[in-house]
């Protein structure tokens, strides 16, 4: 196993894209996610908050304009995606008041009618081959840019994920990156109880991937691991990012019950004030 975070150069953090700015984007996005939990629909709060820093870092890479495409394969974290897209300036409007509402595209699982979203995800597993196909299209055209699939750890129970890993390794898709939001939870309980995934990074390594394990809430580490020019790479990269369900909102942080949450406006205001 190669822990790339030990060897990569730090992210180029100019004044407009520095870590402080990314951290502020993440805080603002978390406040929006809480707003969506306070919508009439509620939202997948725990997983949206666990994946948020991964999304911020991935979109930071995509915003470089090199053709990188990030696919949120764990589409149930749509609230997190919409919030991250908004704070990155991709959405033309604040999605929180419109989440799940008729006449607006911000459904509980994202689709291509949302600005900045190219693929429909939510049926778990599909985002992985979408991103792999995108990576192959970049390579075929002799173009830079990554195909980044962001999955959950529970999602790795889907066969399609591993089917695609097999293909990606065989096709030597070095510009394909799979980031696992390892928050340890899934719909009906804990991954470790339902269908465990021990030695996860070693599994990817056995498929022929380069691997990295990072703190999934360390924006500097995430941006570093996603910053490489992998045009010449011949092995795909798997990033196992350890995260905490409900991260950033103390009332729900680390609680399995945060998987799907509906709250009222007063509680949302209190929870947002607690975001640091």
């Amino acid at each position, binding site marked *: 196993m190669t822990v790339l975070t030990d060897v990569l150069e730090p992210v180029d953090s100019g004044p407009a894209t520095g870590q402080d700015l990314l951290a502020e984007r993440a805080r603002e996005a978390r406040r929006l996610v809480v707003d969506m939990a306070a919508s009439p629909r509620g939202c997948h709060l725990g997983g949206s908050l666990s994946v948020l820093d991964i999304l911020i870092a991935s979109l930071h890479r995509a915003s470089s304009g090199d053709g990188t495409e990030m696919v949120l394969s764990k589409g149930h974290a749509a609230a997190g995606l919409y919030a991250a897209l908004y704070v990155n300036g991709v959405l033309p409007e604040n999605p929180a008041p419109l989440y799940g509402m008729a006449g607006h595209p911000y459904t509980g699982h994202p*689709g*291509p009618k949302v600005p900045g979203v*190219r*693929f*429909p995800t939510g*049926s778990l*597993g*599909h985002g*992985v*081959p*979408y*991103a*792999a*196909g*995108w*990576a*192959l*299209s*970049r390579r*075929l*055209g002799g173009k830079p840019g990554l*195909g980044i699939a962001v999955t959950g750890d529970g999602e790795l129970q889907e066969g*399609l994920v591993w*089917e*695609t890993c*097999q*293909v990606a390794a*065989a*096709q030597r898709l070095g510009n394909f990156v799979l980031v696992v939001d390892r928050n340890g939870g899934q719909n009906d309980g804990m991954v470790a109880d339902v269908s465990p995934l021990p030695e996860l990074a070693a599994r990817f390594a056995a498929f022929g991937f380069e691997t990295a394990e990072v703190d999934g809430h360390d924006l500097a580490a995430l941006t570093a691991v996603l910053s490489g020019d992998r045009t010449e790479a011949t092995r795909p990269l798997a990033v196992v990012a350890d995260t905490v369900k409900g991260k950033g909102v103390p009332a729900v942080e680390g609680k399995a019950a945060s998987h799907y949450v509906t709250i009222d406006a007063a509680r949302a205001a209190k929870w947002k004030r607690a975001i640091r």
Partner: protein
Amino acid sequence: MTATITEARPALAGRDAYRDELTRIAGEDPRVLCLEADLGGKNHPFQRAHPDRFFNLGIAEGAMVDMAAGLAVGGYRPFLSTFAPFAALRAAESLKLTLGYLNAGVTVVAPYAGVSGAWFGTTHHCLEDLAVLRSVPGVTIAAPYGEAEMRAVVRAAARSGKPYYIRTGRNAAYTSLPGQDDELPLVAWDSAGGEGEPCLVSVGEEGTRLALEARERDPGLAHAHLVYLDHDHLARAAAELAGRHSRFVVVEEHRREGGVAEALALLMPRCEVVGVNAGHDWPAEGGDHHEVMARLGFDLPAVLSAASRLRAP
């Protein structure tokens, strides 16, 4: 570009015609890609001619369809092929999302449709694909008969950049109907039939073969062949059919439910529409293609009998 079918060589089977035509198209269109899931054979012409655009992705049908979506969104025109049961049924959700919801310019070419897999058994049969694909809006569905029609459909798919599902058989070759070297007619009228006579409507390779044989045996019958089977095409074809005839026998190598006969019956409510098809059974014995079809009650006597019943007062 139009295909020229020389009489000097035997006709190609559907999947061989697809491979050959796509190889030619790719010479002119650098966006065209050929994807296989390890059922393309060891001597694929596309691989020989365009090795950098040919991908045997291994036995991974779902990943292949979804990766084709990524490639299409990335600016390419992927054609993918695997046996019909694995494309239309195993990868059905991927087809729904890629061909339907995304409306991606991906073409799926599905040999081994119907029971053309014959003695290979039920896992290698697919009598349900039309029902699945016809329920996915936006997909052009074709079941070409003969080399010329397959080539024309492949060219149309490559030109369109729209989602296509193309159904074909195994290794059998069929003599092309006349006049199908370029733009295909909505309804190919093989025989106008006698006044007030039933009209056979043929679908796919074996459905069309049986209809042609039935018309030879019973020259009074009319015969119309349909290549495009999605709702939009059928709705327009139905208008043309109902303008000429009122009693139809639809011949299709598919389940009774979800096939073309059901669709035409709804589209032509003032007409009498019956189907000759593969019914409800699971063929569990060996035999060649025709023997397995006969076990399902899908054969020439069934077509002739259905037409005869329509004539009865």
